[in-house]
């Protein structure tokens, strides 16, 4: 029979190409209409490892921190929270910690905690000086390196961006010695121009400046690269049009570059603000939070409460406030910067 049909040119066994094409389109149509059915199982397979870890190590801890902030931590958990018997095997979920409910007292406590407010003040102080200086320098560098007459751009950019690769604690340690009062390089340079040694690490005023210098050094190149990419997206015609209108260097920067760069600039400001708000390693290594707590930051204080004094519940309350502040700041910046 098959012999026969083939020889008689049965359209199914021996279809002409146009029919095959039409069939394929029909199949694609069906595939396009039914992606949920064919995709579901494989999609869950692809997604589930991520979400198991995401739920366990990200979503749960976020919720648990909030929970913990209403308790005082007693000890590592004893025994099990619950266990489920599946016949051949069972799943036990241990108690994470022994806790004592304290209501809102962690939150009322922080209101009167002088050192917490000191850490808030320090962080804000560092932030308000560091972020404008760093963004200003990064912007100036980006504009300079974007100028058409500058040669060896790649080389300069590389040199300035090099600190991006420096490990945070390692570079902080280098700065600790760089700003050493007796034999640090900075005081040596100052002595060459007749400035007497500055107590970079032991004076309240200068210790904060040391931290600011360190953070600025580490992140200037990072911000410069983002700004440089933003500058390269500014349409050249805008500059040409401005030139025809007789705009000078400053006018072109003020009326073309800045408005065009606004979203990128805003992004960089938000990123840097949050970054500096989370400052920990630099003060931990360079000043240890001193002198007399002049450089202790919020995260450092949370660390101290949690892992030096073991007030884990209280430290969780501090964390909740800290995260709320970070969110408010970034939303506010986007609001202010976004409105025209």
């Amino acid at each position: 029979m098959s012999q026969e049909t083939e020889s008689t040119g049965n359209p199914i066994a021996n279809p002409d190409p146009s029919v095959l094409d039409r069939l394929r389109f029909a199949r694609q149509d069906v595939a396009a209409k039914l992606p949920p059915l064919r995709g579901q199982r494989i999609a869950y397979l692809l997604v589930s490892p991520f979400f198991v870890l995401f739920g366990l190590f990200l979503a749960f801890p976020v919720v648990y921190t909030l929970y913990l902030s209403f308790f005082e931590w007693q000890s590592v958990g004893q025994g099990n929270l619950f266990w489920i018997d599946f016949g051949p095997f069972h799943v036990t979920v241990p108690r994470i910690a022994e806790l004592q409910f304290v209501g809102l007292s962690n939150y009322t406590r922080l209101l009167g905690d002088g050192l917490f407010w000191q850490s808030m003040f320090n962080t804000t102080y560092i932030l308000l000086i560091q972020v404008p200086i760093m963004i200003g320098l990064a912007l100036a560098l980006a504009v300079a390196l974007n100028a058409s007459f500058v040669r060896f751009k790649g080389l300069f950019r590389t040199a300035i961006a090099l600190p991006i690769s420096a490990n945070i604690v390692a570079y902080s340690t280098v700065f600790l010695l760089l700003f050493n009062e007796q034999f640090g390089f900075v005081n040596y340079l100052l002595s060459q121009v007749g400035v007497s040694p500055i107590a970079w690490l032991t004076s309240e005023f200068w210790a904060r400046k040391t931290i600011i210098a360190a953070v600025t050094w580490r992140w200037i190149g990072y911000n410069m690269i983002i700004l440089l990419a933003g500058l390269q997206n500014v349409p050249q015609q805008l500059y040409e049009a401005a030139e025809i209108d007789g705009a000078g260097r400053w006018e072109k920067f003020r009326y073309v570059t800045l408005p065009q760069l606004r979203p990128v600039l805003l992004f960089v400001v938000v990123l840097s603000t949050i970054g500096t708000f989370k400052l920990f390693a630099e003060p931990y290594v360079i000043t240890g939070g001193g002198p007399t707590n002049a450089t202790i930051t919020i995260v450092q204080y949370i660390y101290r409460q949690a892992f030096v004094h073991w007030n884990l519940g209280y430290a969780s309350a501090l964390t909740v406030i800290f995260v709320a502040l970070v969110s408010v700041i970034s939303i506010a910046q986007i609001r202010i910067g976004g409105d025209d």
Partner: protein
Amino acid sequence: MREQRRKDAVWMFLTYAFILTMVVVMLIPLYWMIVAATLPQQEFIEFPPRLIPGTAFLDNFAALQERMNYVLTIWNSVFIAVVYTVLSLLLCSMAGFAFAKYEFRFKEPLFYSILATLVLPIQLLVIPLFLMMSQVGWTDTFRAIILPWLANPIGIFLMRQNMRSIPDALLESARMDGASELQIFYRIALPAMRSSLAALAIILFLFQWDLFLYPLVILEDPGNYTIPVALAGLEGTQRIYYDQIMVATTLAIIPMAILFLVLQKQFVSGILAGSLKE
């Protein structure tokens, strides 16, 4: 006209002066670190400081290695960062592919739950993670350092964005040719994502490489220390050996700096990719 040309020349001079000053400022700490690492301690702390590198690097290194097993520390850091990067790349690209190319239930809420965590500072997680790890007896282990950060929100977000650019027709024709969905993922989607994967690899590696607060809390045995934790401990000892400390920081910074020089393009695209998340 002449006036204009003079102004231009002054401007050019100022621009170059500014760039060169900044370049020097950026390089001084690194240069000075190398000088300090290559001088014996007594020569290093004299005033005025020496400005030319010496030859004592290996002696200083031997002294450092005698005091603590710094080679092991470097190995720990590299091992953790590499294992983390590879595993996280795999997880993020798998999940990112699913979000880009399949329809499934709860897709939207799951994706928004990831977006919500993008803005959370990771410091938020240290206390609960420490308690969880203590409970299951995982403190002082590498898995405690690696596992919690594998499901990286930036990673999945980037992979989803980039995988959307893979044409559906390409996947469909592979299906026609009888490829299974998993084959489509690793034969077509992954190779097409090579440059995005490289950029993400840099982001992930640097994230783990710079992680400090969390390992500081989790790791106890010096034999398990990563570079940041070991360095922070070095500084805290009573008599401070600056030469040894600078050897340690040099070994932490210079190989990464060389890596940066070699893979600069990937670093830059990593930074820009990470900055696109808003």
